[in-house]
């Protein structure tokens, strides 16, 4: 059996089930990681990852070789996560709207912990998971996974302009969470 992703995709398209299984083995940890970053918890990430592979399996014939398989899978995962989060929000009657005030009610990152953690990377992970889900999705897909605005908008079912606004707000929020000093100076000056 081939081990190269492109060859595996070609074989899977021909109906070789073991080739598709091998694709899953090679990519599932990465897909799960993206799903976790989008949903913010393990259980939802599992559901999203499973759904994403089902859709990938059913839609494999629509995958064209000119894109990378991983990028295609990111897009499917993003779409599944958006659908999943949307459904859950409706079930809970929660407003996961982008109009959610940036200063939401959830507890801030423990300042003590922030002071003691010198690693930007660790703080960033926490700050991302604190973002409202709709802002989080856009910044994760753009700044970590490097998807174009157009693809992000398509998978999240929003306009490109809305995707850009969310990205702007997400980046702004991350910076003021991770580097609060400038904003504090600003606040004192007012």
């Amino acid at each position, binding site marked *: 059996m081939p081990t190269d992703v492109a060859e595996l995709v070609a074989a899977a398209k021909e109906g070789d*089930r073991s080739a*598709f*299984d091998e694709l*899953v*083995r090679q990519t*599932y*940890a*990465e897909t*799960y*990681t993206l799903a*976790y970053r989008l949903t913010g918890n*393990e259980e939802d990430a*599992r559901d999203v*990852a*499973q759904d994403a*592979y*089902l859709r990938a*399996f*059913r839609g494999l014939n629509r995958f064209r070789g000119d894109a990378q398989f991983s990028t295609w899978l990111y897009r499917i995962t993003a779409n599944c996560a958006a659908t999943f989060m949307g459904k859950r929000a409706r079930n809970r009657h929660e407003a996961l709207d982008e109009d959610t005030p940036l200063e939401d009610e959830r507890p801030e990152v423990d300042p003590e912990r922030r002071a003691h953690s010198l690693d*930007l*990377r660790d703080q*960033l*992970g926490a700050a991302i998971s604190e973002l409202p889900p709709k802002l989080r999705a856009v*910044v994760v897909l753009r*700044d*970590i*996974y*490097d998807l174009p605005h157009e693809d992000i908008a398509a998978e999240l079912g929003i306009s490109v302009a809305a995707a850009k606004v969310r*990205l*702007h707000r997400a*980046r*702004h929020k*991350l*910076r003021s969470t*991770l*580097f609060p000093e*400038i904003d504090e100076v600003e606040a004192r000056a007012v």
Partner: protein
Amino acid sequence: MRCDQVAEKLPEASEGTFALGRRERRHVESCLRCQAELVQYRKILRAMRAMRTEVLEASPGLLADILANIEEAGERHAIRSLLTGRRVAYLGGLAAAGAAGAAGAIVIAARNRSKARIRLAS
């Protein structure tokens, strides 16, 4: 030009200063506060991009669950192919032709197929 006018553009400018106009760029070049803020955005963006290569450890059993789901979907697909074998073969011929004129027909046929799939799945 004031800092607050420029600050609005700084998140975009973290990807490259092309997001800034000439006057905004001139302001940033001479303003330590805006420079500091831009450096922070760039630090965050670099850390975000580095996260791309990080892979979390998936919860145990996930791989087996995914493969089992695919197995099940594969069975349903096989049954459907048996039931609609002739139509699938015809579509295959159309797809192979790849002519621009056939593209519309393929889209319509694909829609019909997904309807069939939903019926079988339920």
